[in-house]
């Protein structure tokens, strides 16, 4: 039986392709933002900040075409899920881009401050965040629910890394008050990375929703927030 490739199918394919393209840009923004932190490169950081605008434009365009498709074709069930999830993923990716941009912004003052060893830990945390992001985009492109669930379950590792860095940075600032400025910038970068990790799990939830029609629930394993007890011992 001949399956006619309808204009509607083509619309869905194109919208989902835009998600992968936005994802690719997000990966690039995050990867270059980290590189600008690591190599203390303000020029690269400014490129990232500038390039984030393209991501915003892509999100707007995607939302517009998804709304148009919904209005014109009135899709139901699985097709509607794909469109709703596409809009949610696009806005999540746009936020990830914003956070990457914010990391790049902080790289600029850091590039003229005294280099500190803590940066290495943060860049390492960033690489792990980037891996999770790449994995979730792969899961989306191949509709791999198992992979999505695995990523969703693994985010607590990034929470743990964040806590470790939090302790490291606070201890550092306590030991030498001249480093408070640099320490604060690094802390915000780590926090941004932790947020990117959370957004990544949200994309994983959307992949799960597209394929199964169900929500993943909210008992995701999370790291305990770090207290300040360690300062007293």
């Amino acid at each position, binding site marked *: 039986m001949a399956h006619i*490739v309808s204009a509607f199918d083509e619309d869905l394919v194109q919208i989902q392709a835009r998600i*992968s393209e936005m994802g690719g840009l997000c990966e690039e923004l995050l990867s270059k933002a980290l590189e600008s932190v690591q190599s203390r490169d303000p020029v690269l950081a400014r490129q990232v900040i500038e390039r984030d605008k393209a991501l915003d434009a892509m999100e707007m365009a995607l939302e517009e075409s998804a709304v148009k498709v919904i209005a014109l074709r009135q899709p139901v069930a699985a097709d509607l899920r794909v469109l709703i999830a596409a809009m949610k993923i696009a806005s999540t990716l746009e936020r990830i881009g914003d956070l990457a941009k914010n990391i790049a912004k902080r790289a600029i003052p850091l590039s003229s401050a005294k280099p500190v060893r803590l940066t290495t*830990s943060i860049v390492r945390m960033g690489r792990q965040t980037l891996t999770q992001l790449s994995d979730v985009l*792969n899961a989306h492109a191949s509709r791999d629910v198992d992979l999505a669930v695995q990523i969703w379950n693994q985010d607590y590792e990034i929470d743990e890394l964040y806590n470790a860095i939090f302790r490291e940075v606070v201890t550092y600032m306590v030991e030498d008050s001249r480093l408070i400025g640099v320490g604060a910038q690094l802390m915000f970068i780590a926090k941004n990375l932790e947020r990117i990790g959370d957004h990544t799990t949200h994309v994983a939830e959307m992949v799960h929703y597209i394929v199964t029609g169900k929500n993943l629930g909210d008992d995701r394993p999370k790291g305990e927030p770090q207290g300040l007890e360690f300062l007293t011992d």
Partner: protein
Amino acid sequence: MARWVPFGGAVLVGALAALASALALPPLLAFAAGALVGLVGAAVLAREPAGPVPAAAQGAKATMPSTFGRALIEKLPTPLLVISRTGRVSYANPAAADALPRLEAGAHFAHLIRVPAFVEAVGATLADGEERRVRFSTRQDQERFLEARIGLLPPGDAFGPEAQGIVQIEDRTDQRRAEQLRSDFIANASHELRTPLASIIGYIETLQHHAREDPDARERFLAIMAREAGRMQRLVDDLMSLSRIEMTEHVRPAEEWSLTEIAAESAAALLPVARRQGVTLAIEVAAGGVRVRGDRDQLGQVFTNLIDNAMKYGGAGAVVRVVEAAPARAHPNRVGVTVEDSGPGIAREHIHRLTERFYRVSASSSRDKGGTGLGLAIVKHILNRHGGRLEIASEPGKGSAFTVWLPRSEGGEGAAAGDVPEG
């Protein structure tokens, strides 16, 4: 430019030449790309009644006039993609199917490679017909460095009514990795070798001067020099094995083994060392068990390094257990083996850094015990190659547990029924 017709030897030869100049391909590739004329023509024609555009698998099954052209393209080791105006993959050869895991019939190319530079270059070539080359890296398990050449197959009867993009992908990962490794190796090795080397040179000078006539000092100094030389040797051995592992890191292992069996064998080989160090080594893994895809020697080295650490840092009187890990939610479809010790444990802030090269909780303790700081880095690289993970659980005063998680091999014995997709 020559018009494309799906038959006629002279035209085919002309087409080959045109394509060769358009893409600046090496002769063999140009030849193959020319052979694509028949193939794509067939695929596009076959689409009319059959529906979705056939890619790799289906493409091969479609009726094609040129078996010669087809055979050539299918045998080509270089991944080739043909991309329609709307971005859909209308043909992919088997090499592309191997290199691009998400390849599906009619899929949009952005799902395969989403790097902006590549996406933009394909879009630009589809629009203006100019040939482009882009270099970029992608991540799928490991980072890969690729170079793509993108050209346009002109419209005509052979290709259907519209022009299509043709993409040829070269994998430059090996080349990049070799360059990277060389510089890392030099930096790390020289830094770590300098200390023992400086010490040996110092003692040689002392022996040549003040200690010349002092037999006691000579004995003592020679012992120190032997120890330092031993340390240098272990370092060089570890660095060499690390660089060997990195070279194979993106090659998937082909053989299947029982993970517990490998763990048990590595542990058994260390029993004499355990006895000498006064450590109780309990091997509590059964033979048989779930199979994993792996390199036997490398997986053996993983357990040797973990058990060696457990005994070394556990110290005399410690208990080291090698046990199968209970299935964990964070590790679906993986099997785990844990090496546990009753040693001093590791503080939380160090745990996430242990697999870095040369990272040690205490440099002096590691050195006293003959450590190189590379054992866990080697473990990590081996597990990377195997798509596995190392999970470290430890608390000061409560010992440590290092769990090796590896993907179950598909159809491996003992796979739970729930893991098998229905239908």
